[in-house]
């Protein structure tokens, strides 16, 4: 029994090649965020109507909503990179939650104002389906580029890491959506955005769990 452990140690030591240490998680998160920012900025400059966006962003309430959305994305990505390391506290998962709450509150407030003006007409599905597709469509390539980086750290709790990473990706997609969303958010939009974010979080976490199960 103990000699088994001895043999294992000998085998592991014999096959131990030099390894490259991971860079600090905040730096890795910053590099990924910078790459994503560059791609999104190019897409926004090429395709978005910035005049409409500038007019809408002049409203401090919308500006706040935008800030909280982006902050949620950035903090969730940093938290995911931290959490992917074995010795980081699970409490890192809480990092994006305050800004997530503020994001929900600020877009909820925008909905409420919309409700006062338009009443139940705000429930019309309208362009919401496009929003859903947009958030999912942007999230997929972001998640595909993020997950291998998180897996590089061989996380011990991969589903939690993937869920937090999924939140980051979806929040960044929702932020980018605002540049292509030339109208105030309605209750339907909010519901659709929330559904899209949840789908992304569940899909990334679910995929990670499935991979984990298959591996054993």
């Amino acid at each position, binding site marked *: *029994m*103990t000699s*088994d*452990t001895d043999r*294992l*140690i*000998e085998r*592991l*030591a*014999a096959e*131990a*090649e*030099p*390894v*490259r*240490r*991971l860079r*600090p998680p905040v730096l890795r998160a910053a590099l990924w965020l910078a790459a994503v920012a560059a791609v999104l900025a190019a897409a926004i400059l090429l395709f978005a109507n910035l005049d409409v966006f500038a007019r809408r962003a002049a409203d401090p309430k919308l500006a706040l909503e935008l800030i909280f959305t982006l902050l949620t994305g950035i903090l969730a990505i940093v938290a995911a990179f931290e959490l992917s*390391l*074995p*010795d980081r506290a699970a409490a890192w998962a809480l990092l994006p939650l305050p800004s997530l709450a503020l994001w929900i509150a600020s877009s909820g407030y925008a909905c409420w104002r919309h409700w006062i003006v338009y009443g139940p007409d705000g429930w019309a599905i309208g362009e919401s389906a496009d929003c859903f597709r947009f958030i999912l469509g942007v999230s997929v390539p972001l998640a595909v580029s993020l997950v291998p980086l998180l897996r590089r*750290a*061989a996380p*011990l*709790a991969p589903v939690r890491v993937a869920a937090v990473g999924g939140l980051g990706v979806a929040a960044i997609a929702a932020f980018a959506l605002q540049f292509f969303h030339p109208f105030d958010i309605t209750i339907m939009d909010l519901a659709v955005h929330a559904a899209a974010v949840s789908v992304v979080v569940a899909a990334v976490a679910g995929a990670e769990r499935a991979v984990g199960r298959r591996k054993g």
Partner: protein
Amino acid sequence: MGEQLEADRHWSLLMAAAQDGDRAAYERLLREIVPFIRAVVSRQHRARDRVEEVTQEVLLTIHRVRHTYDPARPFRHWLASIARRRSIDALRRRLRTEAHEIADDTAYETFADPAANRVVEASAARDGLGEAIAGLTPPQREAIELLKLRELSLAEASGLSGKSIAALKVNVHRAIKSLRQRLTGAEE
């Protein structure tokens, strides 16, 4: 406390050397941390062989994720996090298995000693099998007796019976086919 800090620093240096490819430092580190891992694992697992099994899993995980250790941070905390996590995973796995498997005492009694089972089963089947063998043609019966009941090699059986190896093979094949038909037919 100071001693622990010193030990942590020592392990941290060994791991940093191991990351750079120093195999001797790595082997020394793994040997030194085993008692610490066992202590962590023993909190979730009681049986000694179980503790050893999970300890080995922890060593494998450490090997796989050794690039994630940052020598600027405490080693003991990194190690304990991995050991605790793997130990809890192993416990969950065991509970999951136990939830899906039923311990059947009678099954256990029946199969505990396969040799005993063979004796019981053989005596139950002997009469039917003996009759079936008696019903074979003489060359088939001879082939079965030499090759299967006395477990001789083909060459030995050929030497004893004076038949060619090819003929013995053909006869034993036909005999088994015939026995199978008789025995399964008798059961139906």
